[in-house]
Each structure stands twice: as C-alpha cells, then as structure tokens.
C-alpha cells in the first residue's frame, strides 16, 4: 500500500540545515499494523506527516496505493488525504467549540457526504466507540480516554484505508491506553492499515512489525507476528 524509497526531508534555519529524513526506505502492505519507534528527534513525526500527506518530501519517492504522490500540490494531497487517511493524535486535537457529534462529523462534511448519511454514519461509529451517550458534550467535559475515543471515531468515520496514530496513548493512563490500543487492533483486524508512532514498547507489541529509527534512518526492523495479506 505504501512504498517509500530514499525519502529525504530537510529543515533549514538561517544557519543550519537539519536532515530529518535521510534516504529512508520501507514498505507497508495493506492491512498491516506497523509501529515506528525511536528517540525524540529521530524523524518519526516528520515521517508521519509525509505519510499523512500533510507535508511534502524534499527527495525520494512515495507511492501511495500505486500512485506517486511526492510532489503533489496541497489541493491534490488534501483530496487524497480526506478520502483515505484518518489521524489519531497524542493530544487528541478535538475542536473545543464543537460537540462530540460535530467533531466526528467534520471529515464527512469535507468529503461532501449528504446530511442524512452523515448522521447515520456518525451514530454508527459513536455507538461502536461506546460514546453515543456523550455525543452532545464538548470535548472539555470528557475524560482523556473518552476524548481519545472521540478522536478515533473521527479518524475512522470516513472508512479510511490508513490510520496514522501519533502516540495515541501518550496522554492516557494505562487502562484508558489499553482500551484505545484494543480499538486500534479491532480496526486493524477489520482491514484498516495502521501506522503508529510510539515511545511505548507496550503499545508497540500490539503491532505486526516495529520499525526503529535513528537520525532519520531506519536502523532495525522486528517482525512480531507474521502478517498474511488477505489478498
């Protein structure tokens, strides 16, 4: 599903040019659950932004679903993104001024889904995440675990092929964290590809494969459980 080859990304300030990704290459198959680990500043977040089509690489190739997307402009990236990718963040990134329901509904609005269908799909996903009863609440009225469930609901409401999770349990206690990891596993088992950045060895164990990074490069790759493509 994803093939990156010799991917490069630099950050330039006035004096120094920092290499964030240094000719990074790997492949992720459809239906896989991949964890990316590494110390702070190793380029994990940069990688995730490029994979999430939020940022453009400075070099190398990025093939998403058989299409070369490196060099796509903002509009093309946004179109591809909103139909195919869901995001889960460490700090949830819910919009405070909108209710749970409105937060979850947003991706559907931006992909042009009709109101009636939107309602059905939001209800279904809230039901599935067991937060239906809080749908009229505002994010700040919810616990961290609940907020992250809303964020997951928002990430999957569009039935994306890929979910990118950035430290999804970083702000949660262990029981809430486990719940979220269970949710992601369920989604993965239902066929969604997941790429997760994490510091937590515990969380990483939920994945099929761990890619470890240092200084913008892949250092090791451990296969935890053999993933067999359903196709």
């Amino acid at each position, binding site marked *: 599903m994803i093939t990156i080859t010799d991917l490069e990304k630099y950050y330039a300030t006035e004096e120094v040019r920092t290499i964030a990704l240094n000719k990074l290459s790997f492949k992720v198959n459809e239906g896989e659950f991949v964890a990316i680990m590494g110390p702070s500043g190793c380029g994990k977040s940069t990688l995730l932004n490029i994979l999430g089509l*939020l940022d453009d690489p400075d070099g190398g190739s990025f093939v998403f679903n058989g299409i070369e997307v490196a060099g796509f402009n903002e509009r093309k990236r*946004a179109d591809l*993104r909103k*139909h195919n990718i869901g*995001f889960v*963040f460490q700090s949830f990134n819910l919009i*405070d001024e909108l209710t749970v329901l409105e937060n979850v509904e947003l*991706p559907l609005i*931006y992909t042009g889904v009709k109101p009636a269908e939107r309602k059905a799909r939001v209800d279904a996903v809230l039901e599935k995440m067991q937060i239906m009863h809080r749908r009229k609440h505002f994010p700040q009225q919810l616990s961290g675990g609940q907020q992250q469930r809303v964020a997951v609901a*928002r990430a999957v409401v569009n039935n994306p092929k890929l979910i990118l999770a950035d430290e999804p349990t970083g702000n949660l206690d262990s029981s809430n964290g486990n719940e979220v990891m269970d949710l992601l596993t369920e989604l993965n088992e239902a066929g969604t590809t997941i790429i997760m950045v994490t510091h937590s060895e515990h969380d990483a164990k939920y994945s099929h494969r761990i890619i470890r990074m240092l200084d913008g490069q892949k250092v090791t790759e451990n296969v935890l459980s053999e993933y067999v493509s359903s196709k």
Partner: protein
Amino acid sequence: MLKNKFYATISIIGLTIGFTVGVLILIWIQDELSYDNFIEDSGQIYRVNINGKMGDNTFYAGYTPPPAGAALVDNFPEVESYTRIYRPNAGVIESKTAEGQHLFNETDIYAVDPNFLELLTYPLAKGDPKTCLQSANSIVITPQIAKKYFGNTDPMGQILYYGKDKQPLKVTGLLKDLTNLPATVKFDMLMPVQNFGDVTYFNWSWVWLNMATYVKLTSQTTEDPKTLTNLESKFPDMLKTQAASAFERIGQPYKQFLKNGNYWNIHLQPLTDIHLHSGEIVSAISDQGDIQNIYIFGLIAFSIIVLACVNFTNLATAQASRRSKEIGIRKVLGSPRSQLIKQFLTEAFLYTIISAVFAVLLVALILPLFNSLSGKTIPFHSIFSNGIWLILLGLTLLTAFLAGIYPAFYLTSFKPVNILKNSITSKKNGLLRNGLVVFQFVIAIVLVISTIIVFTQLRYTQQRDLGYDKENILVINNGEKLDAGVESFREEIAAIPQVEDATSSTGIFTKGSFGDFYVPQTTETDNMVAKDISLGSYLVDDHFISTLNLKIEQGREFDARFNDSLSVIINEAAAKQIGWENPIGQKIRYPGGNMEYYTVIGVVKDFNLESLHSSILPFALFSKSSQSYDTGVSFITLKYKTDNPKELIATIEKEWKNYQQDVPFEYSFLDDDLNAAYKTDLQQASLFGIFTALSIFVACLGLFGLVAFTAQQRTKEIGIRKILGARVTEIIKLLSMDFLRLVILAMLVASPIAWLAMNQWLQDFAYRINIPWWAFLVAGIAALGIALITVSFQAIKAAIANPVKSLRTE
C-alpha cells in the same frame, strides 16, 4: 508592548486618527462658537432684526429700516447707543502713488455710522476708533488693501479716490489683519455712511430694509432677562407712532396694515448668537452659519473618537486569553490584583499618550488642507489656546482609563487555576467584542449612506434644470459705469460673431434682485383690493429672454415694436400666488413707485434665481424703459458659442476699454457663479466624506486586529480542519462568515438610523431627491466588501498556513 507590535501599531494608528479628527473638529467648533467674541462688551450688543408679514409674504431679516436705531435710543433709556452698517454696490477705488495709478473695482466696501468702531471694536493697528470715521472724507482700510494700493508705504493720511466722481478719501485708520478673526461681518474698507445718497434718501422709511443696525444695551438691561423681554414688549407701540407716516407714504396706513393681518415687528438678537442661531433670519451682511452643523460634526467627532476608543478596548480585551496565561502565572507568583490593574492601566496610558502626541503632529501637518476644505483660516496655535489642549489631555486620560480599565479588571478577575488549566476560552467575552464590532460598523455604515445621499442631493441640485441656460453664458459686471453707453456697448458685443445674443439688465441670477410689494388688480377701476404680492424683479431689455433661453408659456416677450414701458412679464409662481388663471391682460399696481399700473403681457416658466436651497418665488421682469426703480447696478449678459472663450473675452475687454477706461473689466461665467452658491455645501460634503472614510478606516483597523486575533486563536482548529480535509476556501469562509454576519447585522441597524437622519437633512432643501434605495445597497456592498478584504487578508494567511506547524505550537 514590544511583543505585541502588531496590536500596538493597530491600536496607536486607530487612536491617533480618532484624536486627530477629534481635535480638528474641536478647533472647528471652537472657531464657530467664538464668532464676534472679540468685540468688547459683546454681551451687551444686539442686532436689530425685523419680522414682517405683508400679504402672503412673511420674512425674518437681519435688516433694519434706517431710522430704527435712532428711534430706539430716543425712546428707551435701556438702549445706550446704536450703529449701522450698509453694503453699497461695488465701487471703483483708485490710488495715485509714485509708482503710478492703481485702480480696482472693490466689492467689500461697507458704509457705517461714525461710531461704528467704538461700538463694534474691530482691532485697529493705527488710528483712533473714536475719530477715524467722523469726517465724511475718511476711510478705514485693512492691511491687505493698504498693500494693494500703497505697497509698503504707510497708508495713514494717504488719499484714495472713490467712485465715478473720484471723491478723495483720506486713510484715517488701519485695521489689523481680519483674516483669522472670527467675525460675522468682514470688510475691506469702511466709509462713513453719509456719503451714500440712497441711505440718506431713505432716512424716513420704515420699510427700506437694506441696513443692519446694532444697539448697545445698558449692562443692567442685559443682566436681567425680564428687563430685556419688557423692553422688547414696548417696541410695537413705538412702531405705531414712529412708522405711521412712512407706511402712509407708501399707501399702506399702518393701522389698516395691521388690521389686514399684517405685522412689522422689531426684535433684538444677541450679537454672539448671530453666527449660529440665526435660523431663518436672512442677511447678506453677516456670515451666518448653522448650529445644526455644529451638532452634526460634533456627533461625527464623538463617534470617531468612540470608535477608536472602542477599538482600543476591543483589541486589548481580545488579547485577554492570549495574556491570561501571563496573568495566571503572575498571580500564582503572588502579584496582587492592584498591581496587575496598575500594569494594564499604565500600558493603556502609554498607548494613548503616544497617540495623542502623534495626533498633534498630524493636526499640524493637515491643518492647511483642513482649512481649505472647511473654508476656515484657523492657525495651528489655536490648538494650545482656548482650553483645547486641556480637552485633548482630558480626552487622552479618559480614553486611557476607559480602554484600560475594562481589560484590566476583566483579565485580573480570572481565577489563576482556571487560566492555567486553559479552561477560559475567549468565547466568554465574544458577545462584548462582537457588540463592539457591530457598533463600529453601524457608525461607519450610517456615515457611508449619509455621504452617498449628501452627494446625490448636491449633484441633483447642480444638474437640475434651472429654467434657463447656464452654459456658455458670460456675465459682465459694472454695466452701470457705462452710463448711457451701455446700449451701444451691448450692440457692439452682440455683433461679435462668436456671440449669439446679448442683453443688459439690472440683475442677473445669483447676484440679487430688487424686491417690492405690488397690488394685483383686474382692471384699473377694480377696487376689490386683492392681497399684496411681493415680487422680485429685474429691469431687462428686449434680449433678456432670448439670451438666457427662458421659456415663454403664455403671451409674448418684450419687443421693440411695442411700447413696453408699462408692461410686465411674470413667472408661473406669481400667477399662481395671485390666483390668475388667465394672467394676460391683467394689471398690477406699484404703490412703491408712482402708483402706476403694469399690464401682464407674458408668463414665463419658473426659474431659480439662486441655489436650489431656496424655492422659486414670485418674480417679474419689467422693461428697462419703465424706469420703475433704480438699483444703481447693471449687467451685460451674453451667450457665446466658441471653444476659445479666452479670445472672446480679450475682444470684449478691448471693447470695454473703448467705453470705460476708469473701471476695470470684470466678468464671470454664470455656471461658475451658480456653483459658488453650492460651495459651502460642497465643502461640508467633502468634510463629511473625509470623516466617513476615516471612520471606515478606523472600523476596519479594529476588524483587522480582531480577525488577526481570532485567526491566531483558532490556529489549532484551522490546522485540525485542514488535516481532516478542509480546503483553503472553506477555511476562509469559516473565518470570514462570523464577521460578515456582524457587518450584515450592523447594516440592518444602520439603515433606519441613516434614513431618519437624512430625511431630516433633506428638509433643508427646497428641491430634494427621494432617498435612493440604492444608497443603502451601495453602502451595504461597500461595507461588506471592505470588511471582506480586511477579513480575508488575515483569513487567507491563516488558511494557507501549514497545518503541521499550527499543531506543533500546541
């Protein structure tokens, strides 16, 4: 402060504009209010006005019959003294110096009683106010006139020659420069009134209204309003005895005159009220403004200052949650509330004082422009006199206090725990902020609608059909100086190929007319005396109607084949007022002349003599051959067809020199003269327009700052939305709609206010437009457009920002 450079700049620009406009309007108002205050004992000096009704005509004028002043002093001990002023027709003044002869036609010569400068203490640079006008052969001049005729030589004791007879006048007084003096009566030269035969001739008349009379009352009288009222109540009885013979003489026995429902009342008006409180009282001698303008501009100044202040408060409050963390930390660290409030107020004071200093500099910079726009000559130093600087200081402190106190108390009232937990969103004071935005735009939109309507009305008045041709019409003054040569001069002019037609007349549009009372009668033997009618009139030759292209509706024009010396052409308004359905052949009697009868030979379509402020009045054209009266002036008016009027004028001037070398050739274009009547209107409209533009600018500054703030506050939200697939256009729409909704609300509030205000304003015009619906539409679109540009600048910036970065700021 440095950290918030952006907000600091916006706040200071807004306040600076607010203060600048405030100061400019304040010194303008100050100037308007100070008229005639320089005159000593101005509180004891009153102008004698007359309020009369004759037939269907009522009037209120700042004119008095010549004997009124003396009669008041003779009859009432409360009246200490009087002085009179009369404005004669223009006259030629000549000087002979070593450098040669200087000869000019002067329009601002005033004829006054010898005690004029004692009572109305215009400042003299040289000469004695008690004696300088005592001798008939004396003249008092301004420094400008002295320079014009004598160069740098001392003018005192020099001789000026006046008029056709070259009467020698000795300069006995030199006035100080009157340019910056706020005076209702301004002049270039003063001459003793005894030189003017028309005044002495009418010394008996209680109906000849061409002079202004000022009286000085005793201090006891003016101290007690009751004494004053009591004094005025005795005037009618005095008139019964004093005016009786004069009314008898014009064929209107005074008792009968009163019985018929007419009146003739004398009133006293305080000198210092003349400039602003004259209302309907007409005068061509005094410069009379309108107190309403003071209110209007005062209101505008106040609005703009409030706008700027609101902006300042708004921006400060908008930063509330931005700075709430800082305050939370300070509070946690133990800073007492009072100290925090002090910090906020200090900041506000700093901003306002900087703005006030900028404003003073800006005023110095644009005062010349403001003067030329407002028709004033206010010097810069007036800002430091008359307490204006005190008002500015007060305004500065008040603004600082108001703009500082709200955010200060608002921000410091937060509980530090809540702030640090970030549970305070700016939504809580959103209502106030939004209210303030709406308020600003209401003011701005009201001003925009008003400006559009004001300019539409002015264009309408300037383009309206006046009832005659005003294009390509040249008016030559001083025709009377040609004496009997005027007709042959006219013929010479008419013979020039580029001249289509030429006429001579005793009056021409915008330059005044003769007015008197006439008695309409069906036949000479008809004793059913109809109501008197007041008619303005010109004496004209046979070419008047054709030259100016007046439309004859009934009958004929004056014609050389007839003897028209007892004929009259009236306008439709006159026929209507008299009530004649078929005026041709009817007669009017002229008691003011020799009781002669004039037969109506034609009716001319109504035309406007002056600006469209005044409505069409009953008017008549008499033939020059009637010699019905003598105004002492004459004009030659011609219609030309040439692309090079300069050349034509040169030709005519040459011809003029052949006839009259002692009088300068003076001319004007009729359309220029007509436009001059709208000069004040245009000045005010331009000022209005400028203040409107400024208020919009200030409102937009506020909006700009607020949007920037909101966009910044919603950075995270925008980032999230973009990650979820929102397009740039969707983000811009999201950010703009909130504000545009406010602007639309402001439009809804502003429209009825503007409608009411403008409806009121239009009442002043005799010919007015219907308030155009499109003014509201244009103002609305303009406000929305300007707001959209302001908003979208920030919105686009926020929308195209990289969402990854906006989330990283978390």
